[in-house]
Structures are given as structure tokens and as C-alpha cells.
């Protein structure tokens, strides 16, 4: 058994529960590897039984029996509506049938651009990361993108080393100018410290809510760029006993992630 931290839940559990609450019943959501999978499974068991999950290799509308650990595994199309292929899914996103896209990255900038390709200079990287995978496609074509990240100054940077996945690029109007579909883009960032959105005019990241026990100052200190602050910054409620129970006994009962 993994031990939850002293205040009753681990940072991963907090991320999962916060992300799960953003998954709306009767919507379509592109689910990336890791925490989005746990969040989708939790959301289905809590408030969103009709959440239609979509995985990049074709799984559409699965009802999770076991936790998917890879985006092409059996769980991604268990009792699904369709077991399609990669083109079908990507083309559906390109036609605006996938409402939410849940993804991650190693670095994020104020405009929600994500890096999952290299740390350092491209031709002489400090760390070569896996690359775009489906990330760029989700950030390009899904209606609204939700990034799930650990929050610290090495990850939240004014300028990231490589723009793998488009957020608002260089700011207002930049997505449309680049040819990306109008009205699409980053919507939320869920972290262990906060829930963030984007300022409607400047398109820069906007602090909306702090996670339990976290102050606005702590969020600002752990962000490597100037954050916009919402007029009213709310306090995000902690994971409920029910959420934690379902997460631990049903979603990830083998404790692969939490």
C-alpha cells in the first residue's frame, strides 16, 4: 500500500480529483496518458457516467472496467461505442467533435503552449523527451484543452525551450493567424497548487483558484512568469471522502499511479 501524505491525500490524488471535476457528463473528451485516464475513470463513477472518452488510437466511449495504463490498451475500448483507428479520431477532432482535450507536458508558458520534445537547445538537448505524439493534434484541434501539470518554476516558464503543442502561441489572434481553428485553445490548467484559466483579452494564464492549504503567494512564487490574478480567487475544495474512496478502491485499486 502506498501511503497517502499526512493531510489525507497525495498530490497525485488531488490532481486526479480536480481534473475529474472538470469532466462534464455527456461531453466528448480526448484522454491522454496517465492522470487524465484516472480522472476520466473517476468522473465516470462520480458525476459523469456518460462521459465519452476518446483515445488516440481509436478507443471511443469505453466504460472502464480496469484502469487504462496505455492509450492503446484493451481498457480504452472496453464496452466502447467504437473501436476505430487513429485517423478516425484525429479527423473527428479536426471537425470539432472532440470538446475537451486533457494533456500534459514538461513545460508550459503563459499562453498555454506546451513542451514535450526537448529540454535545452534542439540540436544539443539537455534532455531529449519523447516528442509530440498526439499532443500537438489535441492542442490544435480539440475545442478546449486542459493541461494537467506539476507546478514549479522549472515547468512554468515565460519562454519554453520548444513549442510542441500550441496554446495561444504568441497571444491574442495568433492561433487564428497561424491557421488553427477559430475559437479553440487552452481552457484550464490543473496543478497541485492551483486551477488556472486564461485572461479573455490578453490570453495569458489567470489564477482562478488555489488548492487546499495553498496561498496565492505560493502559487505566484512557484510560477516563472507573471500571473494574471482573477478578481476573486476561490479556494478549491479538497478531494471528498467519496472521491478518494472510489479512486482507491475502484479506479486504481492496484495503486499503479496513486
Amino acid at each position: 500500500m502506498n501511503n497517502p501524505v499526512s493531510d489525507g491525500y497525495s498530490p497525485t490524488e488531488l490532481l486526479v480529483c480536480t481534473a475529474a471535476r472538470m469532466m462534464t457528463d455527456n461531453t466528448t473528451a480526448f484522454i491522454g496518458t496517465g492522470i487524465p485516464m484516472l480522472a476520466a475513470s473517476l468522473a465516470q463513477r462520480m458525476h459523469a457516467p456518460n462521459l465519452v472518452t476518446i483515445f488516440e488510437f481509436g478507443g471511443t466511449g469505453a466504460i472502464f472496467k480496469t484502469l487504462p495504463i496505455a492509450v492503446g490498451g484493451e481498457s480504452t475500448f472496453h464496452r466502447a461505442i467504437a473501436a476505430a483507428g487513429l485517423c478516425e479520431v484525429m479527423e473527428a477532432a479536426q471537425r470539432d467533435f472532440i470538446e475537451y482535450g486533457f494533456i500534459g507536458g514538461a513545460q508550459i508558458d503563459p499562453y498555454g503552449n506546451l513542451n514535450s520534445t526537448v529540454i535545452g537547445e534542439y540540436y544539443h538537448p539537455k534532455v531529449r523527451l519523447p516528442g509530440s505524439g498526439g499532443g500537438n493534434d489535441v492542442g490544435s484541434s480539440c475545442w478546449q484543452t486542459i493541461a494537467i501539470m506539476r507546478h514549479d518554476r522549472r515547468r512554468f516558464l515565460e519562454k519554453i525551450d520548444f513549442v510542441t503543442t500550441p496554446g495561444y502561441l504568441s497571444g491574442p489572434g495568433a492561433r487564428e493567424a497561424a491557421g488553427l481553428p477559430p475559437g479553440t485553445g487552452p481552457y484550464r490548467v490543473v496543478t497541485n497548487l492551483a486551477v488556472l484559466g486564461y485572461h479573455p483579452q490578453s490570453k495569458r494564464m489567470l489564477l482562478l483558484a488555489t488548492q487546499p492549504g495553498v496561498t496565492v503567494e505560493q502559487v505566484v512564487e512557484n510560477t516563472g512568469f507573471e500571473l494574471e490574478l482573477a478578481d476573486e480567487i476561490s479556494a478549491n475544495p479538497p478531494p471528498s471522502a467519496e472521491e478518494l474512496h472510489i479512486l482507491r478502491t475502484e479506479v486504481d485499486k492496484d495503486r499503479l499511479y496513486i
Partner: protein
Amino acid sequence: MEVIQSGIGQLIQKPDLNAFREWNRQKPKALIDKRMTEAEAIDRFVHDGDYIGTELYGTVRCPMSLVNEVVRQGKKDLRVVGQGVYETDILLAASLVKGMDITYIGLEVYGVSNVFRREVESGRVETCVEWSNAALAARFKATAMGVPFIPIRSMLGTDTLKYSAAKVVECPFTGYPICLVPALILDVGLIHVHRADKFGNAQIDGISGFAAEMARACKRVIISAEDIIDTEVIRCHPDRTIIPYYLVDAVVYAPFASHPGEMCYVHVRDEEHIKQWVEASQEPATTQAYLDKYIYGVKNHREYLELVGWERLERLKAMAQGVDNEQPCI
């Protein structure tokens, strides 16, 4: 059409669709028995310097029996396209790869690929070109359609595009910027399927990734199959033929060919073995020892399975989720 931006990545394989047509015209259209051993298939259809593709999702349905044989035969200076996890790692570990079109090279939950880093940093992999997943699938699809490029609305505005070989043009119909990705014609595709007949007609259960597109983008296709079935099974359910025989050059009977990866409905992934590879791949010496044991140290896939052990394989089979895996017909 005005070109607004050109990616600075190298176009590793030129999209010569006329040459592809000529090649395809020469391919036999007769229903002939193409069953052979993996040794014969790789020897006849994979050559040094070839551009090869493996069709899979993560470690699901990865064509390991064929990849291992490529390594045993030491086919070198390969160019590869990936979506790669364990199978690309093995090719890289054997230092057989010279150029790569990549979208994702890594070990999923186990993080970055050590051999990828070593091969890139040492310069043995000379060329890396970035793409998104949809972009690579669209490149296969362009070839499958027999056209030199496809417009997509991915990669626009990003460094992924900058370091690719894509182009952004002003769309002649709408005036909007649009990304064009070039058709990718592969010399050889390696695909593992649930079942095929002796001619190469193949069925895949569950999701199909980019199998249909990639099979149609290859000059040569080598199929390995969990089961070899009678053509009557194919004819009873022609709607299930995802790869028709005329694309296929070789059919290899290979149960558990995705090991240590998984085959949906058939067997789960061998997590312990994957962890063993993740561990071994940390250092060159342990990487070599792994290759010596599991690839160079066995003659063929059959011997590999014996080395892994039937009891272990049966256990992986028993753990597969209980969706019925009966033959669709007869």
C-alpha cells in the same frame, strides 16, 4: 499556391507516387501462398538502408518477432518511422538506425528512452525529423490515397512544424494557412495481426491504430499472425479484411509475436519483462547482454518463446480481458 513556411527538417523519403504506382503494378495480384519463416521474410524483403515502419500502439500489437529477426540478420543503416516504444528501442539498441521521422519515442510510463538518447547523442542516428501523430498518419494516408501530400490543421504555429519537413501554404480555396504533409512511402512495413490467411488477407481485433493506412503506404508488407486461418473465414466476413492480400509479400505464423508487448483479447503485456528491458537499457553493457540473451542467443521466434517460457506466456494469456475471442465464422 504561396508557401508561407517550410519546416527545416529533412525530407527523408521523397514522395514519388509515380514510382510507387510502377512498383505496385509489378506486385503479383494472384492468390499465392506467401507463408514463410521470419528468417526468409526478413532476408528477402528487408535490405540495408531500407525505410521501414512498424505498426503498433505503444507496445500493443508490436511486431517483435519480425523486429528481432531484423536485428539477428543485422540489417543496417535503416530509416524508421515512429511511434516507437520497445520495438524502436531494440532497433536503436542494435545500432541499426540512421534516420528517423518521429512523433513519440519513449517508454510510456517508464519515461524517456535511454537507447534513443545514446544513439542520437552519439550521432549514430544522423537525422531526426519531428511530426505529430496525426501528421504521420496523414502521411501514410496520402500514400494510401496515391497523392503526394495531405493538408492538415495540426502542427501550425509550433516548433513541431519548424523541425518537420512540412510546409504551410495559403489554401487556394479559403485563403487560410494550412499545413501540408508529404506522402510517406515506406520500403517495408512490419505488422502483427490477429489472423491472416496464407495469401495475406488480414484481420485485426479491437482498435486498428494506423494499420490500414500504413499497410497501403508500403512497397513491401510482412505480416505476422497469431493464427493462420482458412480463406473461407475471410470470405465469410469480408468486411473485416483490414489488409487485403495484394499488399502483402510474406505471411509468418507467429503466436505471441508481440511479447513482451500485448495483443488485445489474446494476452496482456509482460510487465516484468518490460521492466527488465527498461533496467537493461540504462547502460550499453547491460543493453548488449539483453540483446545477446533474447535476440542473438536464439535462432528464431520459437526459441525466443521457449526462452521466455510457455508457462509464463500462458499466464499472460489467462490475464487477457474476457472479451470473446472466438473465430468470427465457421
